[in-house]
């Protein structure tokens, strides 16, 4: 028999650490190194001329494009104008979805008729790619601002409603029984127990929803847009302006990441009990 320190066994616990879960420990510094290495590789392969600028422009070229877009503009508008157009679409759709999907999801959780009514349409259209129903949205609602927001809204609605419904289902029956045994009415139980207990899942739904909103942005700006980050990227692609494409992708990524950080911060403020009970 070989000594029992084979690959099948974990390493001995380091002093002061718990022996156990695979993957325990911090990973932030590794992520920083990964990011630095990727950006370094980008500098390396472009400056050494290993990749043609058409396929991968250098970071300097992308940054120059960024500065040019800020001042002179690309595709007829400055970068700020593109960003405002896209942000208003994504956030318009997001707030519309918050105002409708969360109540619908909660209603689905607490009322079987609502669940029976809303479940088939939501579950049917949820897995469809927005590009597939984009033509219909255009045929029905035209080419103004509304259909663009509506397309993003549809993409956000389903995951948010499903998360709110799951939140309602996650309430423990003891908490509900306790409220009833203290004289609570069904309405009070929904308002004071179920809504609060569903908050963590609702926040998760909001994070997923806004992420989906950003992924749908380019589709929404495919038709009859003259402004917007998605439009800017698509427009640049037609002229093979890959520096503008990459600049647009980075800008969208930064906005999406910044908003996710904000929601995570609000989550910590609003639901300090998450994961502790």
């Amino acid at each position, binding site marked *: 028999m070989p000594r029992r320190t084979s690959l099948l066994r974990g390493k001995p616990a380091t002093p002061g650490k718990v022996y156990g879960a695979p993957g325990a420990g911090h990973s932030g510094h590794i992520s920083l190194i990964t990011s630095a290495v990727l950006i370094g590789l980008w500098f390396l392969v472009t400056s050494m001329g290993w990749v043609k600028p058409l396929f991968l422009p250098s970071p300097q070229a992308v940054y120059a494009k960024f500065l040019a877009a800020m001042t002179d503009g690309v595709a007829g508008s400055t970068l700020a104008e593109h960003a405002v157009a896209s942000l208003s679409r994504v956030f318009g759709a997001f707030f519309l979805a918050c105002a409708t999907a969360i109540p619908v999801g909660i209603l689905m959780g607490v009322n079987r008729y609502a669940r029976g009514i809303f479940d088939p349409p939501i579950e049917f259209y949820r897995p469809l790619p927005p590009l597939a129903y984009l033509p219909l949205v255009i045929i029905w609602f035209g080419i103004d601002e509304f259909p663009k927001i509506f397309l993003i809204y549809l993409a956000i609605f389903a995951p948010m409603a499903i998360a709110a419904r799951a939140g309602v289902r996650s309430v423990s029956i*003891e*908490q509900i*029984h306790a*409220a*009833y045994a*203290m*004289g609570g009415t069904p309405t*009070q139980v929904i308002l004071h127990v179920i809504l*609060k207990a569903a908050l963590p899942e609702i926040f998760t739904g909001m994070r997923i929803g806004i992420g989906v909103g950003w992924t749908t942005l380019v589709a929404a700006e495919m038709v009859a847009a003259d402004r917007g980050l998605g439009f800017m990227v698509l427009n640049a692609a037609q002229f093979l302006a890959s520096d503008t494409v990459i600049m647009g992708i980075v800008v969208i990524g930064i906005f999406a990441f910044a908003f996710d950080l904000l929601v995570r911060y609000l989550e910590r403020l609003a*639901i300090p009990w998450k994961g502790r009970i």
Partner: protein
Amino acid sequence: MTMPSHASPSTAQTLCAENVGVTYPGLHDSEPVVALQNVNLTIEPGEFIVALGASGCGKTTLLSLLAGFLSPTQGRITLAGEPIVGPGADRGVVFQKHALLPWLNVLDNTEFGLKLQGVPRAQRRTRAVQNLELVGLQDFHQHMIYQLSGGMQQRVGIARALTCDPAMLLMDEPMAALDALTRETIQELLLHIWQRTRKMFFFITHSVEEALFLGSRLIVMSPRPGRITHTFALDFNRRYLAEGDGRRIKSSPEFIAMREQVLGIIYGDERAAGPAGGLHA
């Protein structure tokens, strides 16, 4: 309102269960499950009833019936002559796992029932403060639930149930998740609360020692079908309240003799049921 939980208008109320049974319909083609059969139980004000029995004997089913979370398929249950048709503020419940609301602090959790009933803020605060003091948590008003130990969480659960001033307090193994020391402390605390409030207590436990120490009446239940098989009148709790030495009572010859007798009954049930089932004396 000076001492609301101690001079309640509920002292004339009696709980009455007559020929109560619960039968769950069988799944597919299996036989219906008789969870509880032919239970007769009368609880007078000021009684401390402890229900003890092996797993599956219907203790929790009985408590759910009394709380109104479940309605019986046979028989009827009344409180002060009125049939029990659902949960209500006249029957407080303390759960096995605390079931407190993590987004509220200790004081707000304790007030929660009165808030649901629309009691003005100042009044509900006064009553919550009194009951938190009764369970020894006067210094923890602003703490969040997840900052407390398991024993303190259970004490908040007891204070919360008391604050609604119910006629009876239903407790479903509230000490099951606590360590032995905390358990003894809370057992003694419960007896003092019982003495001061004179409410009806209905308490479920797996532990024979806990049952004998707490109850003024012990009902022993047996499984398949769930039913009450033995009833014992006890006075160890009154002796504790008079003498104040829990350990001495638990090691007295009468206590040990009683414990062995009850354990004999329950082990008999366990053997009849096979190797499954968990019991700690």
